[in-house]
C-alpha cells in the first residue's frame, strides 16, 4: 500500500494539468468539483498509505523511500525525484490533504460567480501539489522545489485579484520577503552537500551524528533563516498580514494551515542537524518564537479587520511552534501544527463565511449580532475560538499545554511569555467573537466609518472583496448606501465548517499528555525526532500545575474580553492604542529604512549593475556583433558555396585522420 505514495502528489498535479487545459471550458461549479475531487482522492490515497505504514513493523519499516526517476544526474552528484514516507511526512500529508480537500469544497461556494473561478482552482491544485512535494520529497532539493512552488502559488493567490494595486503589491511583498529566507535555505543545501556529499534525508540522518559542531551550527542557522521567512517569524513576518489580500480560502489553506508551517516542518525534518549544532541555535529559535508570539498577539489585540486579527493570530501561533521546536519539543510542535491547522482553518473559513454573508464587509466594528442570522457559522466559530484560546477539552488546550510544558523546562521566562501570549490570545479572540457575533447589529448605520488614516490603508490592503465584489470602493459603497442582509452561507461552505469544528473539538485526542499510553502522536513520531527530542522528567504535579495556570490564563483573557466588549456599546468601549493597531510601527520602520539609507545603497548597486556588469555583457555582445558583421560575408546565400565549405571541411577531417593514422 505504501507503493501508492506517488499517487498522493500525482492527483493534484493531474487536476492542475486538466484545469489548465480545460478549466475555462468546465466553467463555474465543475472546475471546482474537479479540483476538490482530485484533492479528495489524494487524501484517500494518503489514508491508504498511512494505513500501510501503520501496518508495517517498527524500525526501518516505518521509513519508506520511493524513487521515481533521476532528476539531475551530474557526475558524482545526482538528485532523484523520490518520496520519503515516514511518520512525519505522512502526518503532514494527512492534514494537508484533508484540510485542503475541505477548503476546496468550501471554495466552490465561496468563489461562486467570480470571473477567475477556474483560475483559482488551477492555482489551488498546483499549491496542493507543491505542498505535497515539499512534504514528501526525499531530499533537500526536492523539498526546495516544493518550497518555491508553494511560494509561487502563494504569490499568485495573494495577488489573485491582481487588477487592484494593493493586492498586487501585497503579493510582491510576500514574494520578496520570502526570497530572504530562501537564500538561507539554498545556502544550507549547498553547505549540506559540501559537508555530507549528499542531500537526501536518509543520508543526512545517517551522517548528521558525524558533523562537526560548527558545520552543523552553520547549516542549522541557515535553515532557521529559511524557516523564519516561510513561517513569518520576526523579523520577516511582515508579509503575512498583508497576504490577507487574497481570497479567504487562500488565507485559510496557505497562510494559516499549510504553507506557513513549512518552516516548522523543515526544522523538524532536520532535527538531527539541529541537535548536533551548538545549543544556542535552539535557544535562538525558542526566543524568536516566543518574541514573535507575544509581539503578534499584542498587535492582534487592536486590529479592526477580522482577517487581520486572524493573520496576526497565525503569526503568534507559529511563534508557539517555533518555541516548541526551540525547546526540543518537536512532537509538540507538530501536534500544535495539526490542531492549529484545524482551528485556524476553521476560523478563517468562518470569517470568510461572515464576510460572504456581509457582502464583503471585513470591519468588525460594523458587524455584531450575527449569531442569530448565521447560526452554523457562529456555532462553529465559537468552537474554533475556544480551541485557540486553550480552553479544555478543546484541541488547542492540549497542544498549547504541551508547548508550555516544554517551554517551562527550557526556561521559566519563555514559559511566562507563552503564558502571557495565551492570555492575550484568549482576549483578542474573545474580542473578535463578541464584536462579530454578539451585541447589537451595527451594519445598518450607514455612513459611520470610524478609524484614522492608518487603519483605512490597512483595511484597504487587507481588503478581501469576497466573491461578489472586488474593489474596496465598491465595498464601502455597498456598506454606505445599500442595506446589508447577512445570511447563512450555502452548504458547500458550512459543511467544511462543521467538519473542521468537530476536528477542532476532538483533535486533541491524538496526543493526550496526561497518560503516556495516550500519547499516540508522540509514539508515532518517535523514530523521526529521536535525535533532537527533549525528554521531560517533570513530575505529573508540575504538569498539572502548569495546565491549571494556563487554563486560568485563558479564562482570564476571555473574561476580560467579555467585560470590555460583550455588553458595552460601541461608544463606551476602550479605544485600542494606535501603536498596537499599527503593529508597533514595525512595517513603517522597515519602509523608512528601505526608502532612506537602503535606497541609496540600492541605487549604488543599480549603478554598478548597469555600468559595470551590464557594460561588460554589452561590450561582449557588441564585440560579437562586430565579428558577426565580418563573418556575415561568408553567408552568401549560394547553396553551392556552402556545399564547397562542407566539402573542404570533410577533406580536412579526412586528412587529419589519415595523417594521424600514418603517424601512429
Amino acid at each position: 500500500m505504501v507503493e501508492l505514495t506517488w499517487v498522493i502528489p500525482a492527483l493534484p498535479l493531474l487536476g492542475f494539468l486538466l484545469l489548465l487545459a480545460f478549466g475555462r471550458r468546465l466553467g463555474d461549479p465543475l472546475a471546482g468539483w474537479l479540483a476538490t475531487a482530485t484533492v479528495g482522492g489524494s487524501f484517500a490515497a494518503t489514508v491508504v498509505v498511512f494505513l500501510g505504514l501503520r501496518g508495517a513493523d517498527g524500525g526501518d519499516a516505518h521509513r519508506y523511500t520511493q524513487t521515481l526517476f533521476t532528476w539531475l544526474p551530474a557526475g558524482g552528484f545526482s538528485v532523484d525525484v523520490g518520496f520519503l514516507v515516514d511518520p512525519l511526512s505522512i502526518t503532514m500529508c494527512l492534514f494537508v490533504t484533508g484540510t485542503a480537500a475541505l477548503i476546496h469544497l468550501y471554495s466552490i461556494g465561496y468563489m461562486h460567480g467570480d470571473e477567475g473561478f477556474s483560475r483559482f482552482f488551477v492555482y489551488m491544485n498546483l499549491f496542493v501539489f507543491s505542498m505535497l512535494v515539499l512534504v514528501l520529497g526525499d531530499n533537500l532539493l526536492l523539498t526546495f522545489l516544493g518550497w518555491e512552488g508553494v511560494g509561487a502559488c502563494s504569490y499568485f493567490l495573494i495577488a489573485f485579484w491582481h487588477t487592484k494595486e494593493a493586492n498586487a503589491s501585497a503579493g510582491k511583498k510576500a514574494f520578496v520577503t520570502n526570497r530572504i529566507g530562501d537564500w538561507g535555505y539554498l545556502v544550507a543545501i549547498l553547505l549540506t552537500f559540501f559537508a555530507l556529499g549528499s542531500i537526501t534525508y536518509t543520508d543526512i540522518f545517517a551522517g548528521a551524528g558525524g558533523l562537526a559542531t560548527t558545520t552543523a551550527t552553520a547549516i542549522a542557522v541557515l535553515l532557521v533563516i529559511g524557516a523564519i521567512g516561510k513561517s513569518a517569524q520576526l523579523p520577516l513576518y511582515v508579509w503575512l498580514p498583508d497576504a490577507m489580500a487574497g481570497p479567504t480560502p487562500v488565507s485559510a489553506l496557505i497562510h494559516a494551515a499549510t504553507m506557513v508551517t513549512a518552516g516548522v516542518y523543515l526544522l523538524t525534518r532536520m532535527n538531527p542537524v539541529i541537535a548536533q549544532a551548538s545549543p544556542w541555535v535552539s535557544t535562538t529559535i525558542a526566543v524568536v518564537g516566543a518574541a514573535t508570539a507575544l509581539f503578534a498577539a499584542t498587535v492582534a489585540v487592536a486590529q479592526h479587520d477580522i482577517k487581520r486579527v486572524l493573520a496576526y493570530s497565525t503569526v503568534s501561533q507559529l511563534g508557539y511552534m517555533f518555541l516548541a521546536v526551540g525547546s526540543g519539543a518537536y512532537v509538540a510542535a507538530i501536534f500544535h501544527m495539526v490542531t492549529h491547522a484545524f482551528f485556524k482553518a476553521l476560523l478563517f473559513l468562518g470569517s470568510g463565511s461572515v464576510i460572504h454573508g456581509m457582502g464583503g464587509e471585513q470591519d468588525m466594528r460594523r458587524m455584531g449580532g450575527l449569531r442569530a442570522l448565521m447560526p452554523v457559522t457562529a456555532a462553529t466559530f465559537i468552537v474554533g475560538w475556544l480551541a485557540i484560546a486553550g480552553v479544555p477539552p478543546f484541541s488547542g488546550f492540549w497542544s498549547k499545554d504541551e508547548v508550555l510544558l516544554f517551554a517551562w523546562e527550557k526556561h521559566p521566562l519563555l514559559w511566562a511569555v507563552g503564558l502571557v501570549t495565551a492570555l492575550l490570545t484568549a482576549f483578542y479572540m474573545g474580542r473578535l467573537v463578541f464584536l462579530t457575533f454578539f451585541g447589537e447589529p451595527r451594519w445598518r448605520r450607514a455612513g459611520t466609518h470610524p478609524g484614522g488614516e492608518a487603519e483605512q490603508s490597512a483595511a484597504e490592503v487587507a481588503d478581501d472583496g469576497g466573491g461578489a465584489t472586488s474593489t474596496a470602493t465598491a465595498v464601502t459603497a455597498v456598506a454606505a448606501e445599500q442595506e446589508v442582509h447577512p445570511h447563512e452561507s450555502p452548504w458547500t461552505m458550512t459543511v467544511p465548517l462543521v467538519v473542521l469544528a468537530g476536528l477542532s473539538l476532538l483533535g486533541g485526542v491524538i496526543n493526550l499528555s496526561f497518560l503516556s499510553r495516550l500519547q499516540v502522536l508522540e509514539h508515532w513520531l518517535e523514530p523521526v525526532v529521536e535525535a533532537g527530542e527533549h525528554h521531560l522528567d517533570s513530575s505529573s504535579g508540575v504538569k498539572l500545575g502548569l495546565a491549571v495556570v494556563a487554563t486560568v490564563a485563558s479564562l482570564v483573557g476571555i473574561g476580560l474580553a467579555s467585560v470590555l466588549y460583550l455588553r458595552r456599546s460601541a461608544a463606551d468601549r476602550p479605544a485600542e492604542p494606535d501603536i498596537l493597531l499599527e503593529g508597533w510601527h514595525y512595517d513603517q520602520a522597515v519602509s523608512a529604512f528601505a526608502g532612506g539609507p537602503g535606497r541609496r545603497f540600492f541605487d549604488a548597486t543599480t549603478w554598478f549593475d548597469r555600468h559595470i556588469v551590464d557594460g561588460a555583457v554589452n561590450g561582449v555582445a557588441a564585440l560579437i556583433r562586430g565579428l558577426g558583421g565580418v563573418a556575415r560575408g561568408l553567408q552568401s546565400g549560394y547553396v553551392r558555396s556552402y556545399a564547397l565549405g562542407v566539402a573542404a571541411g570533410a577533406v580536412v577531417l579526412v586528412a587529419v585522420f589519415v595523417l594521424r593514422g600514418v603517424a601512429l
Partner: protein
Amino acid sequence: MILAATPISASWYLGLSALLFTVGAVGLLVRRNPLVMFMCVELMLNAVNLTFVTFARELDDVGGQVVVFFVLVVAAAEVVIGLGIIVGILRRRPGATADDLSLLKG
C-alpha cells in the same frame, strides 16, 4: 581461374565507392540545376551504401545491410520532400537555378 576463385578484396569496393562519392560531391558543387544537384546527392548516398554493404560482408555482419535499408527509406522520404520543394519553386520561377535562390544571404 585462380582469379575467379579468390574473392575480390574489399579495398576495391571501398575505392570504387570513394570515387563515386567524389564524383557526386563534385557534381553537387558544379551543377546549378537543383534536380541534377539532387541526383548528385543520390550518387553520394549510393557510394555510402556500397561502403556499408562492403563492410557488412567483410565483417560478416548483416547489420550493415540493415543500415542500407534505412538509408534507402530515408532517401526516399528526402527525395519526396525535396522534389516537392523544387516543384513549388520551379512552378513559380520556371528555369530557376540553385544560384537564383540566394534570398537567405547574410
